[in-house]
Structures are given as structure tokens and as C-alpha cells.
């Protein structure tokens, strides 16, 4: 009896999963470009739904809004990818380690249709909770060479905060071994290469750059500053002193300048003058970080923020329609995906559309803010021992190096592609405007910030330091401990992650 119920459940679930999978995949290509946003926004989800099987269809969606330009130049991203062939002697199984299915979906949409038919691609997903993804990589990568061909990890993805850890070790391969040339990577943002370069050897590449901006509510700007024009607002926010003055004004009008404690963290931590850890493994606290501490404490005590923490529910709620928070520091993905999604009254899952009129969509704008910064970013690398180096190289070339793909991909996803000339084209395009930002061309802003990004202060300890620093000072902002105790707690926590560090 129980078996039969289980069987029935299994059967129905299989059906459901076949029917249901298209509904979750449409997020990436829904936002539109040019003024003609609404028509393409409505079409895109349907077309790109079952990405792997319908490569031809997804082209239609993006052609509509860009009629004015030369048609040959504007192929759909998926059509920019050349068919990939399997080099002699390479394995038929490609294993890719990732921590979520973001890139898996992009792979399925753009690359999978062009993969050699006899190659099986396995995504090994390990969530990054409590460091599980990295722990898994740390276990598997060093012994990758001794595994059987089909068991080997061939490529894996990693994020900015722990990029150095993998590229600095010998578990990653030189991209030249994979078939990438200097010419292939010449248009990439230098910082995306620097972070993956060890002793002059480039070991990983990225398809995106992640410059950050300050996104604000136009309504709030009008009320507080009398204008919502990005240039005028920028003039009022161009340094931290001015920023604070506006925060005080905002308070008078019943607004919070920022949502929580960590909002401005990256704006400070990206502008440090020394790395987290020096060559003798001493942890050093940069003045910029203490400036963040002092500013946030002041904002908290003065009531300029809502005392939320990054990613918590209250923080997200502050981004939804009707909330009295002036703005958020967010980078590329944050503005185009997270904030745009949160601004809706009827979310996409319930049939809402990313269009003006739905909640506060279209009622936001962005400016540079008091300092330039970046946030996030994902890179890919080949694992030492892979039996598919050329295949991995081909995927990297198609996804990260091809200028046509970069441009088409950027337009389809509103992501900021890692290709300087192509992004310049978009930034200079007078016809381009983001519907979410009320017609503002955010690429123009991103372009100027992206130029200034530097990751030369990176260490393998950054993730632990950043996370624990923010965590430890939450108690200080909450008024539970004094600054010294918070600092001591930070030292303790960071030593739990890296016992080799030297702390005062």
C-alpha cells in the first residue's frame, strides 16, 4: 500500500517537474532594453523557458527592441556561440562544480545547444552554506588527478572573496594550457585578470565585471533634495560628509538614508590602502574599515538606518514598494536583478511583470555615490587533472571572450559583461535606457566605475575577514559591546577560520 502511494507520488512528481521546469528559468532574460521594453518583456519568458531545447526561438525576443541597429551585429547571444568540438583524447564526461544553479541555467541556455552531442555535462552543486562548497573543493581538488576520468572535476566556479585561495594554489590550470590566447583576453577588465593572475600566469576568467552604484528612490530624492535627477543627486552625495548631511535631511522627512549596518561596507572596504593580512600573517585593520565602523555607529545612533543586516528579511523588505529608505549600495547584479525584483508589487512568480506601473519599478535611479567600489563577481577555472582541458577552454572562450556574445548577453540579461569595448558601445548608446531606472542608461555609470576597480589588495583571507568583521561589529552597533570588545571578538572569529593568522 505505502509502496503504491509512493509510486504514484513519484510518477506525478515526474510529470510536474517536466511541466514545471520552464517556470523557474525565465528570470535572466526578462528585462528589456531600449524604450520598447514591454513587448519584449512579455515575450522573453515564454521563449527562453526551456532553454536547452529551444535555442532558435530565444533569438526572437531580443531582436525586437533593437531594430534601429545593424541587424547583422545583433544576433541573439545563443547564436553568437560557435559549435564546440571535442578534441581527440578528451573524456566524454564534463564535471562542473558550482554552488548554485545560476550559471548552470546560463550554460544550458547559451552553451549547451552548441556542445558536442556525445558529451555528458554534470553540474555538481554544493551549497555554500557554512563553507560547504569550498570544503568540498578543498577535499576534491588536491586529489583530482588520482580520480578516474569520469569522476574528475573538470572546471569549477568561484567568487571574488575567495578567488585568491584557488588561483594561488596549484589546483588550477594556466588558461593558456586550455587554448586561450592573450588576444582572447585582451578586452577583459584588467582587474578581473589581475585577481586570477599569479606570477604572471592567468588561471581563471570571468564573463562579468561588477562595478557598484548607489541606487535611490526617485520619489524620496524629490522629497529630500527637491530633485531626482541623477547628476543633481550625485552632486549632493559626492563625498561622505555630504552624504551624511543628506542623511540628516532624510531623517527630517521621515526617511532612513540606508537600510542597515552593512549597506556601505563595500564602499569602504574596496578603498582600503592595505590588504587584510600582511606578509607576516598579521591581521591589519585599515582606516577605511574603522571609518565604516564609526559612520555606521553614528548612523545607527542618529536613526539614519533601520538596523537591518545584509540579506535579512527586514533588509529586503526595505527594498519593496512603499518603504521609507532612501537608497541602497548595489552593484550590477544587485540593481538589475535583486532590486528590480524587489521593487515589484506583484512579483514575477505571481505573474507580475518587470514593467512600469508594477510597484516601484521604474521609480528608481542610480548615481555614483561618495566613492567607487565593486561587489561580487564570479570566475571560472579548469581543475588540475582534468581530462577535458580543451573543452573547458572552448567554453571559456565562448562565454567570456567573444565580444559579440558579450554584448548580446549583456543586453539580454542586463548583466555587465567583461568586455571593455563592447560595454563602451552600450555606455555610449544614446538610445539605450533601463526601464527600471526610469530610462537612465546605467551602463554609462557602470562603465566609469568599472575602470577604477582594483583588486590588488586581495588575500586568501578576505572572505573570513569581511564576514567576521561585519558580524562582530553588529554587536557594537546594537550597543551590546564597546569597540574594543567587538574588535577582540573579530580577532577570535577570524582565527577560528584561519588559525595561522597573527592577531594582537
Amino acid at each position, binding site marked *: 500500500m*505505502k509502496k503504491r502511494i*509512493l509510486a504514484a*507520488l*513519484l510518477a506525478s*512528481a515526474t510529470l*510536474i*517537474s517536466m*511541466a*514545471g*521546469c520552464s*517556470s*523557474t528559468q525565465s*528570470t535572466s532574460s526578462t528585462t528589456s532594453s531600449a524604450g520598447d521594453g514591454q513587448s519584449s518583456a512579455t515575450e522573453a519568458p515564454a521563449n527562453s523557458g526551456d532553454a536547452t531545447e529551444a535555442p532558435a526561438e530565444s533569438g526572437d525576443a531580443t531582436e525586437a527592441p533593437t531594430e534601429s541597429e545593424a541587424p547583422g551585429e545583433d544576433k541573439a547571444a545563443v547564436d553568437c556561440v560557435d559549435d564546440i568540438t571535442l578534441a581527440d583524447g578528451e573524456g566524454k564526461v564534463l564535471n562542473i562544480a558550482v554552488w*548554485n*544553479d*545560476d550559471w*548552470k541555467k546560463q550554460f544550458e541556455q547559451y552553451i549547451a545547444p552548441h556542445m558536442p552531442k556525445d558529451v555528458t555535462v554534470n*553540474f*555538481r*552543486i*554544493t*551549497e*555554500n*552554506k557554512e563553507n*560547504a562548497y569550498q570544503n*568540498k573543493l578543498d577535499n576534491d581538488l588536491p586529489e583530482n588527478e588520482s580520480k578516474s576520468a569520469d569522476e574528475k572535476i573538470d572546471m569549477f566556479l568561484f567568487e571574488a572573496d575567495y578567488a585568491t585561495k584557488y588561483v594561488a594554489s596549484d589546483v588550477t590550470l594556466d588558461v593558456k594550457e586550455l587554448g586561450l590566447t592573450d588576444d582572447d583576453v585582451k578586452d577583459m577588465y584588467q582587474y578581473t585578470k589581475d585577481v586570477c593572475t599569479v606570477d604572471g600566469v592567468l588561471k581563471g576568467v570571468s564573463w562579468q565585471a561588477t562595478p557598484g552604484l548607489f541606487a535611490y528612490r526617485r520619489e524620496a530624492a524629490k522629497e529630500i533634495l527637491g530633485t531626482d535627477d541623477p547628476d543633481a543627486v550625485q552632486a549632493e552625495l559626492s563625498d561622505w560628509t555630504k552624504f551624511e548631511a543628506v542623511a540628516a535631511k532624510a531623517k527630517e522627512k521621515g526617511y532612513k538614508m540606508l537600510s542597515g549596518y552593512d549597506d556601505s561596507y563595500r564602499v569602504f572596504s574596496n578603498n582600503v590602502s592595505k590588504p587584510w593580512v600582511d606578509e607576516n600573517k598579521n591581521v591589519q585593520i585599515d582606516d577605511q574599515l574603522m571609518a565604516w565602523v564609526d559612520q555606521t555607529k553614528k548612523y545607527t545612533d542618529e536613526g539614519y538606518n533601520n538596523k537591518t543586516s545584509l*540579506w535579512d*528579511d527586514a533588509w*529586503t*523588505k526595505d527594498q*519593496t514598494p512603499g518603504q521609507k529608505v532612501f537608497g541602497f549600495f548595489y552593484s550590477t*547584479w544587485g540593481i538589475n*536583478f*535583486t532590486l528590480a*525584483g524587489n521593487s*515589484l508589487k506583484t*512579483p514575477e*512568480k*505571481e505573474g507580475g511583470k518587470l514593467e512600469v506601473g508594477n510597484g516601484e519599478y521604474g521609480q528608481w535611479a542610480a548615481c555614483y555615490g561618495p566613492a567607487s567600489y565593486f561587489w561580487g563577481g564570479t570566475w571560472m577555472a579548469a581543475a588540475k587533472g582534468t581530462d577535458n582541458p580543451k573543452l573547458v577552454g572552448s567554453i571559456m572562450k565562448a562565454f567570456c571572450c567573444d565580444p559579440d556574445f558579450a554584448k548580446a548577453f549583456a543586453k539580454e540579461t542586463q548583466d555587465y559583461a567583461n568586455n571593455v569595448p563592447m560595454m563602451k558601445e552600450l555606455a555610449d548608446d544614446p538610445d539605450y535606457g533601463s526601464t527600471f531606472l526610469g530610462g537612465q542608461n546605467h551602463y554609462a555609470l557602470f562603465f566609469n566605475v568599472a575602470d577604477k576597480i582594483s583588486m590588488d589588495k586581495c588575500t586568501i583571507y578576505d572572505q573570513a575577514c569581511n564576514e567576521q568583521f561585519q558580524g562582530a561589529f553588529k554587536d557594537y552597533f546594537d550597543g551590546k559591546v564597546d569597540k574594543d570588545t567587538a574588535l577582540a571578538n573579530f580577532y577570535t572569529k577570524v582565527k577560528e577560520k584561519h588559525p595561522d593568522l597573527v592577531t594582537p
Partner: protein
Amino acid sequence: MSKDYKTIEHSSALQRSGGDPDMKAGPGLLIHRIVCYVVLTFFSLLCLFFFYILIINATRAHYDIMRGFSFFPGGSFGTNFMSAVSNDTIPILNGMLNSLIVAGLSGLLSVYFSAMTAYAIHVYDFKGKNFIFNFILIIMTIPTQISALGLFTMCSDWGLRDTYIPLIIPAIAAPTVFFFMIQYMKSSLPLDIIEAARIDGSGEFRTFNTIVLPILKPALAVQMIFSFVSAWNNFFVPSLIIDTSTKKTLPLMIAQLRSADFLKFDYGQVYMFIFLAIIPVMIVYFCLSKFIIAGVAVGGVKE
């Protein structure tokens, strides 16, 4: 045992209606009863409240849940159900099956073998028996997490990582079950029965399986529930051992869902997942709960 108990209950109830001083205070007893019902109802509602919230949240969409709390169901049950069962990176049905295998087997093994060990101590006289008894009591004081690290290394060395062996087999040595069983045997397993079986020519092993186990049934059922539930909800050890997504048990999957990237995070789906994950363990619980209702008597004074 339960029969004896009922007859006693019956006879004493009869007796009491006459001479008990408390009984004469009729209103006192009534008030006492009312207090009991009120308190019990309050706590039962409190218990059910959490299930209620869980189910309500499973019917609400992510953004609704984010925006605030509600005591009334939303309209997204279908959507949430779809997204929970069709998530191909976190296959819930696989998870249920895996959890059933792990929890079911470890429940059975721990109950059977710990009862067997308790039986050995209770029935037989042998050298070192007291030592072993005390030793098992000391084992009881070792938190599982203490040996987890060593277990992890050992499993890596022996190629047991990513298998169910380290999740299931250790259940055989369950000192808490052992202890409960030995207490139960003391009150409910007359040695004469074993003696009689021996005279009938039954082997020791057969006696245990066919005569002793049925007598122990109520205690086995209660401990089975406890072991099953704790294995079903276990997170710490599986999180160290299991890597492959199709081998993951439900708590690991829930952790994975909860840690989903911000963009992917969907409360509706998470609550639906939790709701679905509770259903099998509820079914098991309701199947065995008659033993909880009837009650199991352990220890105490015998005549």
C-alpha cells in the same frame, strides 16, 4: 502487563468510589479536571500553532511572506508545490526516500540490537556483565558530535564517505535505547517465560525473536519513534558525510534550500518543502502512536 494494569485500575476505581476522601469533594475534583483540560488544551494548541503557521506559510508566496505575517492562507499552494517538487537540483522525492531508508533502517537496527543487548544483560549471568552495563551507561554521556570529527576522518580513510553506512550502522549501539529496554524488561519480562521456552526446546536466539520481542513490542514501538524521528531530523553527521545531491537526506536539502542565493531564495518553496518533509514522519508517527497513547510501563516495584 497492560492487562494487569487495567484490571487494577478498574478494581481500584470501584473501591474508591466508596471510601476515598478526595472523592467526596466532588467540586474539587471537577475543578481539578477543568484545570487539566484547560492546561492541556492550551499546550496542545501551542503545539498545533507551529504546524498551523507552517502550513499557512506553505500556501503563501515568497514576497507575501517577506512582507509580513499572516494567520490566513495565501493562494500559492500550487506554485509552491510545483517549485518544491520540480527543483531538479534539490530532488525532494529522492530526499524523502533517502531519509526513509536512513531513518527506517537506523530505527530498526537500534531498537533490535539494543533490545538484544539489554536482553543479554537482563537474562544471562556472565563475567564482566556489570562492567559492561556500567560501561554502556558511561557511553551514554558521550555527545555524538564529539566523535563526529574522528568519524569523518575514519570514513574518509575507509572510503565510507558519501555512503549511508556511517549513518545507519552506528545506530546498532544506542545506549539510550538499551537503557530504556532494560528498564522495561525489569517490569514486564518474567524470566519464567524464558525458562518455559527452554523447556519446550526453543533455542536462545529463537526465544528472543519469537517470544521476547513480542512482549517488548510497546517499548520497541516507543523507542522506534524516538530513534526514527531523531535520525529523520539529524543534520550534523550527514552534513559531514554525504556529498552527492541525489544521496542527500531531507535536513541537508532544507539547509541547501535555505542557503540558496538571495535571488533564488524562496520562502514559499522552503516552507512547502518543510511541510512535505514532515508528512512521511507524521505517517510513521501516527502508525506507531497507539503505543504512546496506550502507554508503556517501565521500572517500579514489582510484587
